């Protein structure tokens, strides 16, 4: 789904998106999502994905995703489990080479020039370990130094990040002994240290306590207000509706709808709209034996 910067009024399911009910086996070639002729990547967008495609063995995880994340937007990526969110974000951040398609970061072709593309990105991947034998402060320092930053800046920002994320007193604790939420927060710090133009966060609020989550939301909101771009994936519709200004609904490796949150949800709540788009709601008549009376 292409999203020219003057935001279009409505972008619901349909239009140039490949039919979502396309059976995986019948897909003809690697680039089926481009029937009307490929739109060129948008150089003004923070992230511009075209025809991203990835298959693992027999499973097609992402089947031709087109997406434009306008610079300065707070973009939510929502979808059911196994929709291809993580795969898409991995391909958009240089962690997973797509079978076909391209990803542009502020006009730079990420897979043609990974170094230039990655410099502008801060990434919080989901489901990967950290170098957990380092302390929290060491890990954030490590990320900063890997980015080629100088020692003083790294030291200053590490301190500030740990304080902002409420990890200051655990700065010298080994990450292996952190709780799940603390681990998420320290990983977020490693993604922020080099002040990237665009942040891509896969499930950033998972296991994070409500207070820290509110702090993180404030940090991200401030970052967007100052011109940065944030892409988050999440299961929590409520959160996305409150926090994000743009949203894309992904299911079965396709984009079902994309645009501003208000345009996508119409007069429904985002959650209801999501369920309408994705389907799969069961009628509650079954499981009669589960009713206790």
């Amino acid at each position, binding site marked *: 789904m292409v999203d020219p910067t003057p935001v279009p009024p409505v972008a619901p399911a349909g239009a140039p998106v490949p039919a979502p009910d396309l059976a995986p086996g019948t897909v003809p070639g690697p680039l089926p999502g481009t029937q009307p002729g490929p739109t060129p990547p948008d150089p003004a967008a923070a992230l511009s994905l075209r025809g991203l495609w990835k298959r693992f063995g027999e499973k097609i995880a992402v089947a031709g995703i087109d997406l434009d994340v306008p610079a300065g937007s707070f973009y939510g990526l929502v979808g059911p489990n196994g929709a291809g969110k993580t795969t898409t974000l991995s391909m958009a951040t240089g962690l997973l080479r797509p079978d076909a398609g391209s990803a542009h970061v502020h006009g730079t072709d990420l897979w043609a020039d990974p170094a230039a593309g990655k410099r502008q990105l801060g990434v919080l991947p989901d489901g990967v370990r950290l170098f957990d034998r380092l302390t929290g402060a060491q890990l954030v320092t*490590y990320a900063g130094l890997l980015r080629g930053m100088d020692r003083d800046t790294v030291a200053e920002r590490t301190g500030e990040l740990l304080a902002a994320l409420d990890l200051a007193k655990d700065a010298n604790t080994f990450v292996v002994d952190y709780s799940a939420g603390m681990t998420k927060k320290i990983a977020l710090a490693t993604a922020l240290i080099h002040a990237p133009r665009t942040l891509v966060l896969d499930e950033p609020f998972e296991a994070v306590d409500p207070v820290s989550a509110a702090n993180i939301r404030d940090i991200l909101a401030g970052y967007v207000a100052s011109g940065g771009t944030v892409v988050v994936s999440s299961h929590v519709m409520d959160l996305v509706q409150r926090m994000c200004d743009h949203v894309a609904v992904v299911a079965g490796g396709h984009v079902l709808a994309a645009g501003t949150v208000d345009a996508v949800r119409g007069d429904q709540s985002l959650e209801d709209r999501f369920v309408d788009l994705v389907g799969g709601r069961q009628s509650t008549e079954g499981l009669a034996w589960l009713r206790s009376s």
Partner: protein
Amino acid sequence: MVAQFVRLKLTLMGNTFRRSVWQTIGFLVGALYGLFVVGMLVVGMVVLGTDDPVLAGSIMILVGSLAVLGWWVIPLFAFGVDATLDPQRFVLFGIPQRRLLAGLAVAGVVSIPGIVTALAALGVSFAWWRTPLAVLAALVGAVLAVALCVVGSRATTTALAPLLESRRYREVVTIAAFVPLVLVGPAFAWVGSQLGGGPVDGDAVRGMVTRLAEIAAWTPFGAPWGLGAAVHDGAWGLALVRLVVTLVTLAVAWVVWDKALARALVTPPTAGAGGRAKGLGFFSRFPATPTGAVAARTATYWLRDPRYSGSIAVVPLIPVVLLVVGGGAGSEIFLALAPFTAWILGFSISADIAYDHTAFALHVSTGVSGRADRWGRALPVLVAGGLVSLVFAVVSVAVAGRWDTLPALLGLTVGTLLVATGVSSATSARLLYPVAKPGDSPFKQPQGAAMATFVAQSVAMLLVLALSIPFLVPGLVAILADLPAVGWVTLVVGAAVGVVVLILGVRWGARAYDRRAPELLQKVMSAA
């Protein structure tokens, strides 16, 4: 309930085949190997039993004792090796304790080590085929012995689980476990030398084995294995005593397991207090560049991750091993100390990315250059390993009193360290094989990884050997033929070849890394 547990275990085993062809092949190779060993053992014992039943009985008792002991003790070191039926996973099902215990016990036999032990125990019972009654007794003993293995191992692991849950303790135990492992070889050499040089006295050995077996048969480990022998000798009283020892041990182990499990089921594992460190450590001492950062991280891991520090713990033992194997300080074997150490250390980074596991994603997402990644991993090994092996070189020359060999030895050491590091830097960006995951025991080999590991390591070792020939040949000539002049040649050639291989290896590895970093990440993720 028991049948359900066995079915669950079989399903779990079957499912590992679906994950990859290599795992299936690895499993089949392992199974065939196990069957082969069991077959040889059974045939050997039957032949021996026909010929010399007393000796056969003694050997059965000794080897059997070791097997039971192994079952009891090894899981304490190689924790988490088989957690498929961790009792914690059944906590929420509310299974009556008695049934849970029975199910877990029987399912414990359904594993490769369990099946191999059971087959071997039952098979060797037929060493007494000339006296059917002894066969019967031995079969009973075999069943009891297998039960003892499984129940005893569950008892020790469950009872000590609270200790094993502490990360600190696990790490200490793990590193400590390397010491006896390394010393097994020299211990055998020592026993060999104690049995007298020259032709081995068959009777003396036989006498010693029988005496040892008589003692072992009184212990809980050896008693079940001695049933057949006692019945064969017609010593009914002895057989009864051994049976009682076995049954009592089994009962005690069962009760301990029962009690420990009851406690474990209501006290879920806790992480315990976290470790702390002061300041930034190496990160504030190494240069503030990507290369320096990778080096600082690598150095930190060498000290803190048991998978690395285990190999550091081995280094001081190398001279001990070589002294014993060489039979004294004067032998040429002891001179191999420094090159051998250099080789081990240079080789130790050959699985570095696999050791990072998915944490490697940080390197990929930050876009670290291959140059920084490769040099950062190689430099700590070169500096620390270089120091250690140079000290070893001087010490070994001094101890052996062969100062004339110093130049040759230095050439061999420097050359080996540089070549091995260079080859490791190149191959580790190309040949990834699954290794123990972060936090796992270093002894825990990932299932079915044997083949991939073997191929990758053989390729790397052959490369090191081939590239070392230019200084290996003059070095050996200089030392063995007493030609100090050739020693100086070795030093020059070793240093030159080493530097060239190191630079080319790192450069090649860096290029491969730059091209394939995302693929490398996918590979470690798929091994997750």
